[in-house]
């Protein structure tokens, strides 16, 4: 168990180091976030809260596909073999899940700031929404990380991730939109905690499935 944690930490450190040394990918995604929201601002101006909410989560979906897509595509098969010999599949997928969740939370917060700057600010409970955004970014990244592993093994690009992932992300997106509706009105709606718990439950399900299934993807 402790060996596993050490392995995961080492793999995480490697991913973060790579990110710091090759900063163009990080800034690339950041620029993607900024330019998407800017184009959206030019197209929509400052929409009302329901539209704002819908647009925000749809943009999160596309950001997630792009941010997470490269996590497996950048690894060559030789390097995968090397990780396999030193760490094992479970540690590897867990480190990727944690790393991408962190990356996506960062991107979600960035896009939240940009949304509030450009698209108007209909939020009544910004802190509540911030919490939802962190949870949501995390949930989206978990599903898409595993799907990017599948797409990478099939030697496919980000388009394949979208095809595989969009039908599967529907429960999370619907739950997220419903939860975040709470942050737009003064009236407290019931079920906020329950729906958040369902979302966390879904995340645990995804992690479990990823840990069980990834070793089969890995083998060649």
């Amino acid at each position, binding site marked *: 168990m402790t060996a596993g944690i050490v392995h995961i930490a080492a793999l995480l450190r490697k991913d973060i180091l790579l990110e710091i040394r090759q900063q163009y990918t990080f800034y690339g995604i950041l620029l993607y976030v900024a330019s998407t929201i800017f184009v959206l601002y030019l197209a929509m101006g400052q929409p009302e809260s329901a539209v704002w909410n819908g647009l925000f989560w749809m943009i999160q979906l596309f950001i997630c596909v792009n941010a997470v897509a490269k996590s497996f595509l950048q690894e060559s098969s030789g390097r995968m073999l090397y990780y396999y010999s030193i760490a094992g599949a479970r540690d590897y997928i867990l480190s990727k899940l944690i790393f991408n969740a962190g990356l996506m939370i960062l991107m979600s917060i960035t896009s939240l700031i940009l949304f509030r700057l450009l698209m108007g600010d209909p939020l009544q409970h910004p802190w509540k929404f911030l919490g939802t955004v962190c949870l949501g970014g995390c949930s989206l990244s978990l599903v898409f990380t595993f799907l990017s592993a599948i797409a990478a093994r*099939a030697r496919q690009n980000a388009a394949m991730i979208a095809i595989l992932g969009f*039908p599967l992300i529907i429960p999370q997106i619907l739950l997220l939109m419903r939860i975040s509706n709470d942050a737009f009105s003064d009236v407290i709606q019931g079920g906020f905690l329950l729906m958040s718990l369902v979302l966390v439950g879904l995340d645990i399900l995804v992690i479990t499935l990823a840990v069980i299934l990834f070793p089969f993807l890995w083998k060649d």
Partner: protein
Amino acid sequence: MRWWKILAIALLLYTYIGGLLITVPDVGNLQHTIRNAFFHIPMWTTQFIALSISLVYSIKYLRTPKIANDIYAVEYSKTGIVFGLLGLVTGMEWANFTWGAAWSNDPKQLGVAVALLIYLAYFVLRNSMTDIDKRARISAVYNIFAFFIYIPMILILPRMVESLHPGGKGVEGNPGFNGDDLNTAMKWVIRPAYIGWALLGIWITTLRLRLHLYTEKTQTAV
């Protein structure tokens, strides 16, 4: 001919004759369209059974990587898609008369649309790979992953969106019927209908499987 194939024919004949001849209860604006229940609802159960069998064979493939398991998984998911489409068509036709529109964002309609998208993506993923073993393994992984996400989805969707189906949320003014509206005669037709359609689905799949396995065999022999 195996006994269960004869049973399938007998049950479906019974469903058609019984379903079209028995006296049905008069519920709301359904009138005689209520007879569609014998043909529409079993499509869903058959779809679900076929997709579950597909899941079982995908798990089997990961445990013992035999190519036959993969072929079973594919053919059962194809049958699942066909029955899903049939269920969609019969349901939309029915909804057109009773709910006033073919599509009304009902959670069950959304559920089947998502299922079709998932399994069509499964075929796209399969066809993107040429290596047989790799294709079998990766698509098995996707099949299992997708199925276990799909189950919570069909549990969550009805609680998020209002339903016109019987037993759904927001049933006020629902022109549909619920389980209590089925009289005894209808129950005696619909229960065998479930089994009959499911057996037909499995029968169709076994035929396709024989063809698929045969072509596989002849192609590798050459």
